[in-house]
């Protein structure tokens, strides 16, 4: 078990150059995620167009794993319906549990190395748990939500 498994170049690249970082003024879904263990916080903003995710942005502070994972997620779910986005969340969580995933040819595959560092898995899933929570609240008619990695998945 080496650091190279954790800090793949792709991850460090997303960390130093996060994609889709910032706020969205006209967001349809706003959700905050928190990891009580380390105090990390993250906010997600989703704009929809015709039932499809047109734009996702995030802001917050966190470790390289949580920030890189959020950055990759914003790329992964753009253009998807809310149902497809939730499928992606489920697939990502499954990948972090060691199951097969559809992400082998994407940047997300780099996060598989995090599995060898169990304490850090929650860092990787933070943004995804938050997105899932935000979509669920939106579908139930609520627009703002707060997710935490301590909620049972």
């Amino acid at each position, binding site marked *: 078990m080496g650091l190279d498994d954790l800090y793949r170049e792709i991850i460090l690249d997303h960390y130093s150059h996060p994609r889709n970082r910032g706020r969205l003024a006209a967001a349809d879904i706003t959700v905050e995620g928190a990891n009580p263990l380390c*105090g990390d916080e993250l906010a997600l903003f989703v704009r929809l167009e015709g039932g499809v995710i047109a734009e996702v942005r995030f802001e917050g502070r966190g470790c390289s794993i949580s920030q890189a994972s959020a950055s990759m997620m914003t790329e992964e779910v753009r253009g998807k319906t809310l149902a497809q986005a939730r499928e992606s969340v489920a697939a990502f969580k499954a990948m972090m549990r060691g199951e097969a995933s559809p992400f082998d040819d994407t940047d997300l595959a780099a996060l598989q190395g995090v599995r060898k560092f169990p304490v850090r898995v929650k860092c990787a899933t933070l943004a995804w748990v938050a997105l899932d929570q935000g979509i669920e609240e939106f579908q139930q008619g609520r627009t703002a939500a707060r997710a935490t990695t301590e909620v049972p998945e």
Partner: protein
Amino acid sequence: MIPERVREDFPLLQLRVHGKPLVYLDSAATSQKPRVVLEALARYYSEYNANVHRGIYLLAELATQRYEEARARVARFINAPRPEEVVFTRGTTEAINLVAYTWGRATIRSGDEILLTEMEHHSNMVPWQILAAEKGARLRYLPFDGQGRLALEELDALLSERTKLVAVTQQSNVLGTINPVAEIARRAHAVGALVLVDGAQSVPHMPVDVQALGCDFLAFSAHKMCGPTGAGALWGRYELLQAMPPFHGGGEMIMLVTLEGATYKDPPHKFEAGTPNIADCIVWATAIDYLEGLGMAAIREHERQLLRYALGQLREVPGVRVFGPEDVEQRGSAIAFDVQGVHPHDVAQVLDQEGIAVRAGHHCAQPLHRRLGLAASTRASLYLYNTPGDIDALTRGLETVRRLFAPRTAVRDR
């Protein structure tokens, strides 16, 4: 300085981690235990394990005697006037909660004020928040300056006849700051407030004398001072303890129970319902013997020299910013720092691969970190068994961190 061979007293310090010799820099979280303590624990369970204060047989008498001797040992260690002023608890957190739930509930009224500081550990903040919410009392906070020193010039303005309690840490678990507790106690007493001192980080590292401090309560833990986990103490002035209602109800703490009610024992037993943590309290006395064998003044001096070296070395690492006082006379050896552009979890992860154990996170002091403008920090903390070599390993590890997270210029194409 304390000779490097004391490391051999600590079996765990001989471990290798990820193929490297362990460099343990997390003693502010919990200290390692010397062999004499481990052996004393085994001796208790194999030679005189019995419940205390109830058996007539030899072993029960022996266990009771050792348990009460341990209380006297702890009392002597902090120069308490009498052993009955030491209440055994699970640790510092339970000791502070004991005061909040007994003295606090009986004393605090709507409109009263409790003065804390912005550098308190959650365990000396949340119990008072719970109490204040229940009673309609107000919490006030003494701030700290850019070097992590309490703004004492604001103290008198925050104190008034409404102030019923000042609860303050003697040594910050993040900034390392050693607070002038005796001075604070003197000023607090002038307005009639009581003073509780959180000694979790000070009692293990320096001579602490409750009579010299002039405080009313002192809370501290065994596990941060070479003793076992799950044991700690509340020291309180006897007349205060006597006037306080009990904490937990149950066996051991009663004089007489009828269907209608109960009468209680005198302190400290009034506050020790149920079977106490006999083994760990007894073994705590062994840990104190070990520490005093080295000398608390010598331990403080060892840490002060090591701290001076560490602060100098860390200052040489580009991008590293150390929090807390620069003057080693004003601080203890918890060293929280920030590595520019690298999250503390990543710092700690890289150091772990080098065999270096540090803490990353908010260290149970979220308001303090918010004041620093951070969500988290990395903390290296020292104790009697650390050496200059440990500091060198840390600075080398931080160079590795910086190399790995060096700014990247090219955005990779997909």
